[in-house]
C-alpha cells in the first residue's frame, strides 16, 4: 500500500465522519431560500408584538392607570411625612400586626439605623412600592385563589400559568412591558412586581381553602349554610393561616422584584444598587444592598409575627 492510498483512505474516512447537520431553520435556509432563518422568526415575533401592541394598550392603559396613580401617591405620601412621624407610624403598624415587643423594637432600631446612614428616604420609596403592590396582589390574588379552589378545571388551567410566572427569569417580564408602557410611568414596574409576587397569594389561598377540614364543611352543610356563608364563616377563616403565609411570600417576592425593577425607573434602594453596578461604586452598592436586607428582615419578621398570632388562635394546644 502506498502513502497516497493511505492518505486517500484517511480522507475518505473523514468524509464519512462529517455528520449530517441538524435540519435547523438556518441550515434549511441555505438549501432553500424560501425557508425563513431563525433571525427572521424572532424578527417576526417582534413585528407581531408591535402590531398587537396598540390594541392591547388601548385596553390595558386605562385599566392600569389607577396603579400608576396609587404608586405615585404612595411614594409621595411616604416622602412628605416627617421622619419621626413615618417611624412612629411604621412602628405602630408593626406592633398592631405582630403584637411582639421584640419584633417592634427591632423595627424601630432598623429604621433609625437606615435614617442614620441617610438611606431612610430610599427605604421609604421601596417600602411604599412594596405596600401598594402587596395590597393589590391580595385584592386580586385572594379572589382568584378562591375561584381556583372551587373549580378543578380552573386549577388545571391556572397552575401551569402560575408555574410559568414563577420560573420566568425576572428580566423577561420587563421586555414586553417596556414596549407597552413608557418607562416614566410607575405602572411599568408595578405590573412587573405584581405579576411576579401574586403567585403565592393565589396558590396558598387555593391550597388553604382546599385543606379546610371536610368534617367542618359537612357540618356547615348539615345546618343549611349557603355557599356564601360557608366561604365567610368556615372556609376563609380556616384558610387564614395559609393565606397569611402566602401574603408573607408575596411581600418577600415584591422586595426582590423591586430591586430589579429599578432598571425601569423604580425608585428606592434598588437605584443605589444599580449605581453601584453602573459606576463601579462598590461601597454605595454594598450599603444599599445591606439596607435591602434589613428591610427584608423587617418585613418578614412583622408579617411572620402576624401569621403566628393567627395560627395560635386556630391551633389546639399552641
Amino acid at each position, binding site marked *: 500500500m502506498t502513502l497516497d492510498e493511505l492518505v486517500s483512505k484517511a480522507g475518505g474516512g473523514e468524509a464519512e465522519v462529517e455528520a449530517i447537520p441538524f435540519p435547523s431553520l438556518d441550515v434549511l435556509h441555505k438549501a432553500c431560500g424560501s425557508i425563513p432563518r431563525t433571525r427572521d422568526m424572532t424578527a417576526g415575533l417582534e413585528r407581531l408584538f408591535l402590531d398587537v401592541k396598540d390594541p392591547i394598550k388601548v385596553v390595558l392603559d386605562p385599566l392600569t392607570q389607577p396603579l400608576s396613580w396609587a404608586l405615585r401617591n404612595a411614594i409621595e405620601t411616604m416622602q412628605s411625612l416627617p421622619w419621626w412621624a413615618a417611624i412612629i407610624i411604621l412602628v405602630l403598624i408593626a406592633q398592631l400586626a405582630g403584637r411582639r415587643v421584640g419584633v417592634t423594637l427591632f423595627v424601630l432600631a432598623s429604621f433609625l439605623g437606615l435614617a442614620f446612614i441617610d438611606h431612610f428616604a430610599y427605604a421609604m420609596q421601596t417600602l411604599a412600592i412594596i405596600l401598594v403592590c402587596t395590597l393589590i396582589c391580595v385584592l386580586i390574588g385572594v379572589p382568584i385563589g378562591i375561584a381556583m379552589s372551587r373549580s378543578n378545571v380552573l386549577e388545571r388551567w391556572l397552575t401551569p400559568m402560575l408555574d410559568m410566572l414563577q420560573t420566568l427569569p425576572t428580566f423577561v417580564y420587563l421586555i414586553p412591558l417596556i414596549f407597552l408602557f413608557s418607562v416614566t410611568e410607575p405602572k411599568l414596574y408595578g405590573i412587573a412586581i405584581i405579576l411576579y409576587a401574586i403567585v403565592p397569594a393565589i396558590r396558598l389561598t387555593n391550597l388553604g381553602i382546599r385543606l379546610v*377540614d371536610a*368534617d*367542618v364543611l*359537612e*357540618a356547615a*352543610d*348539615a*345546618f*343549611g*349554610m*349557603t355557599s356564601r*356563608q360557608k366561604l365567610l*364563616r*368556615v372556609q376563609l*377563616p*380556616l384558610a*387564614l393561616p395559609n393565606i397569611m403565609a402566602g401574603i408573607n411570600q408575596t411581600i418577600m417576592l415584591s422586595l426582590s422584584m423591586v430591586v430589579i425593577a429599578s432598571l425601569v425607573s423604580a425608585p428606592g434602594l434598588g437605584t443605589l444598587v444599580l449605581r453601584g453596578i453602573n459606576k463601579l461604586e462598590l461601597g454605595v452598592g454594598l450599603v444599599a444592598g445591606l439596607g435591602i436586607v434589613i428591610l427584608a428582615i423587617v418585613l418578614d419578621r412583622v408579617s411572620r409575627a402576624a401569621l403566628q398570632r393567627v395560627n395560635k*388562635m*386556630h*391551633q*389546639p*394546644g399552641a
Partner: protein
Amino acid sequence: MTDSFISIRNLYKIFGPNSSAMISRAKSGMHKADMLKEFGHVLGLRNINIEIKKGEITVIMGLSGSGKSTLIRHLNRLIDPTSGEVIVNGTDILKLDRLQLLQLRRTQMSMVFQKFALLPHETVLTNAGMPCSVRGDDRRVIDKSAREWLHRVGLSGAEALYPHQLSGGMQQRVGLARALTSNSELMLMDEAYSALDPLIRSSMQDLLLELQEDLQKTIVFITHDLDEALKIADHLVILKDGEIVQQGEPQHILLNPADPYIEDFVSDINRARVLRVRSVMTETISGSTDLELLDGDENLEAAILRSKGEAGKTFAVHTAGQQVGTLKMTDVLKALVPAARRSNPSNAE
C-alpha cells in the same frame, strides 16, 4: 304507620360513574363484592326500608363499611340516593329544590358528628348558636338560647372558651348543644360518641337519655357499638354490607336473632344487664298475692339479685302499678343463654 316521622322506602345507593345503570343489577340481587369486581361500582345501600317514629330513638347499627353513615346522610341529603324515596314529615325531600333543601336543613333537622366538627375560630357560645345564626335569627335571642342549652349539657361557664381548650367529651357536649339550639324535631347523630373514651361515652349516653325524657325528639343514632345501641334504642336497625339484616325492638332482636350474623353479634353482650324482666316474663297473671313484686323495666340482673340465688322463685311483674305477668327464675336462667347455644349445646364453649 301514621306516627312515622321519616319513611325510607326502597332506598338504593350505588357509588360509581354509571350508578343508575347498576340499579337493575342491584335490584336483581347482585352481590356487593361481585359488583365491585365486575363493574367497579360500590353498592352502598340495598333496598332500605325504615319507618322512624316521632319521639323515638332509632339506632342504626353496623360495622364499618356497612353503610350506616351513608344511610344517615340520606336523611338530610348530604348524599343523594340512586333510587328510592325519603319522606320527612310528609315531604319527599328528594323533590326539594336547593332553597327548600336549605330551609329543611335549617329548620327541621340538626346533626351531631363523630369528630365534633366545631368551628375552631369561634367561641363555644357562637358555636352553640350556629344553627340559629345561619338562619339569621336575632343576636340576643341566639345568645340566650345557646346559653340555655349549654347549661343543659353541663357547660355553663365555658361560653367564652374556644373548642380546642376543651376535652373531647366537652367538645361533643358543645356539638350536642349546637344541635339542640337549632330547636328542630329531628336530631341525626353520626357515631356521635365513638370518638370518646368509655366512661365519658357512658355519661354522654345518660345525658342523651335524660334530655330525651324531657324533649321527646326524634333521634336517629348511628353506632358500631352494640352495648350503646341496646342502651339507648327504642328501635334498632342492624345493617350489614348495605342491607338491613334485622330491625325491631332491641329486646326482641336479642331474644330472637334472625340469622347467624346477628346471633354472633349479640353473643358477647351481658344479657343479664340488657334484658328486661318484661321481655322474659310469661303474661299469665296469677291471683295469689303472696308473690314478691318486681318492676317490668328492671333488668334480669336485678331479678337475680332479688331472688338471692333461689332458682325456684317466682315474681309478680308490675308496670305502673298494674300486674302484667309473672316471672319464673327458671325463665331467667334460660334467657341468659343465647338461643344459638341453647339449640346446639355442643357449640357452647
